[in-house]
Every structure is written in structure tokens, then in C-alpha cells.
């Protein structure tokens, strides 16, 4: 285990290790490569740009939150209210009556009076 003072010295020496560093230069023929690239440069593909935008975490999470919110609102709007329950019961009663849904077999069918 190093002493506190030694560690402090090491840190300071490491932090100043970039002092006086020479500027790095790109390889030879940089301009030639740049020119070649400029020559074959194509405008960014629309799909690439679109995917780039939607793949950002902020956009993806916002979209997800939006979808969940819309789902929640739709769910809340479709919750059965008293009025809807009543309508559904009336509808059910009407269908039972009209189509004789309570009958379980053919023989119970009432023949229409002649």
C-alpha cells in the first residue's frame, strides 16, 4: 500500500504527463484521401437519418411513453359506466327475446301461431 503522499505525487505526475506533448498530425496524403471522399460523397440516406433519429434513447422513450399514455386514455374511456351497463343489459334482453337465446334445444322452440 502506497503512502498518501506518494499517491498524490503519482497523480500529479500523471495529470501533467500531457504537458509539452507535440501535436499529432494525420498520415501522409490526407488531402488526397479527403478529395476522394468528397468525390464519392452522397447525401445521407433518408432511412439512415430516420433510424438515427428514432434510435436516440430520448426519442424512443418518449414514443414509448406516448403509446402507453394513449393506451391508458383509451382504456379509461372504454371502462363500463352505469349507462353503458344498462344499455348492454337492455341489448342483451332484447337479443334473448328476439332470438330466444335462452332455449337450449330445438324442441323448446315455439311455433309461431297460425
Amino acid at each position, binding site marked *: *500500500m*502506497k503512502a498518501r503522499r*506518494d*499517491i498524490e505525487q*503519482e*497523480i500529479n*505526475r*500523471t*495529470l501533467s*504527463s*500531457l*504537458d*509539452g*506533448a*507535440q*501535436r*499529432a*498530425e*494525420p*498520415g501522409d496524403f*490526407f*488531402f488526397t*484521401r*479527403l478529395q476522394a*471522399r*468528397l468525390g464519392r*460523397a452522397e447525401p445521407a440516406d433518408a432511412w439512415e437519418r430516420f433510424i*438515427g433519429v428514432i*434510435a*436516440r434513447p430520448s426519442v424512443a422513450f418518449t414514443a414509448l411513453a406516448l403509446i402507453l399514455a394513449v393506451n391508458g386514455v383509451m382504456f379509461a374511456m372504454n371502462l363500463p359506466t352505469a349507462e353503458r351497463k344498462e344499455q348492454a343489459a337492455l341489448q342483451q334482453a332484447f337479443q334473448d327475446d328476439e332470438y330466444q337465446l335462452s332455449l337450449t334445444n330445438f324442441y323448446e322452440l315455439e311455433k309461431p301461431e297460425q
Partner: protein
Amino acid sequence: MTDIIAHLKQGSETAFKELVAQWKGMVYNTALGILQNEADAEDVSQEVFMQVFESIGTFKGESQISTWLYRITVTKCLDFLRKKTRKKRWGKVYSLFGQNNELVIDPPEFHHPGVELANKERAQLLFKAIARLPDSQKAAFVLNKLEGLSSKEIAGIMDASVSAVEGLLHRAKQNLRDQLEDYYRNEE
């Protein structure tokens, strides 16, 4: 320099060549400090000059050309790092589903070619710690240490106040100190 810009706005290739020759070192060195990969730094440097070529018409000359170039370089480098992180993230997801997407793995060691031989090991350790800094701290620290820019100049590049840049530099140094302290404590 204003002559070069004027000629460049007229589409002169000689002026563009002159501009690249004059500023390529500055752009490349900054990109290399932030990206810590020679191929990526060259790639981004080319993109910087491509953008300069394409958008020279929008350069109004309100700031110095070096400030403008630094700004483009920093923005491109940070975009590049974000894209790389995104690729890594998706690579991990794809690998879960058995596709053949390789995980992008960073080279473990980076040696800056301009660092003195005696400082190589320490600089390598420092670069490793710099790579873990948040983006804005990383950019400010590299501009300050590798390019020797003042807080005022960095503020112009990063479109921030001088006090904000000083805060960034202070936090960057503190973060680096903490990382280095952890390293030296556990070294033996």
C-alpha cells in the same frame, strides 16, 4: 485568412487545399484526443473538412476560423462517440438474439504519438481515465490540455460562459484525480 475564406466561398480548390494544410493538425489532434483512435480521428477530421467545404457559405466571419473549426470538430467527435455507444448497445441486443453482429470493442491501450517517451505510460493511463469522463468534460479537458486553449477560448468553442467552462475543467480534473487515486491505491 479572410482571403482564403473569400476564395473558398467562390469554390476555389487551391484555397481549400491551403485551409486543410493549415488546420489539419489542429483538427486531427483534437479529434485524436477525444476519440483516442487514429482511424476514427482521421475519419472525423475528413468529415470536418467536408462540412467546411459544404457550409463555407454560412460562415459569417463573426468568430475566428479556428473557433469555427474547433466547434465542428468537437460536435462531430461527440456525435461519433454517441453513434459508437449506440452501435455497441444494439450490438449487445442483437447478440442476445443470436445474430452475427460483432460487439464493437475499444482497443485497450491508446498511445498519443506526440507524448514524450518518458511519459508514455502515464499518458496512457491518463487517456484511459479521460475516456471515462462525461462528454462535455472530456471535450473541455482535451482542448485545454492537448491544444493548450484558455477557458475563454474553450467557452467560445463550446458556446458556454467562461465560468461554466472553468466548472467543467474543475470537475474533469476532480474526476480524473478520483480515478487515478483508485488506480494507484489498488496498484499494489
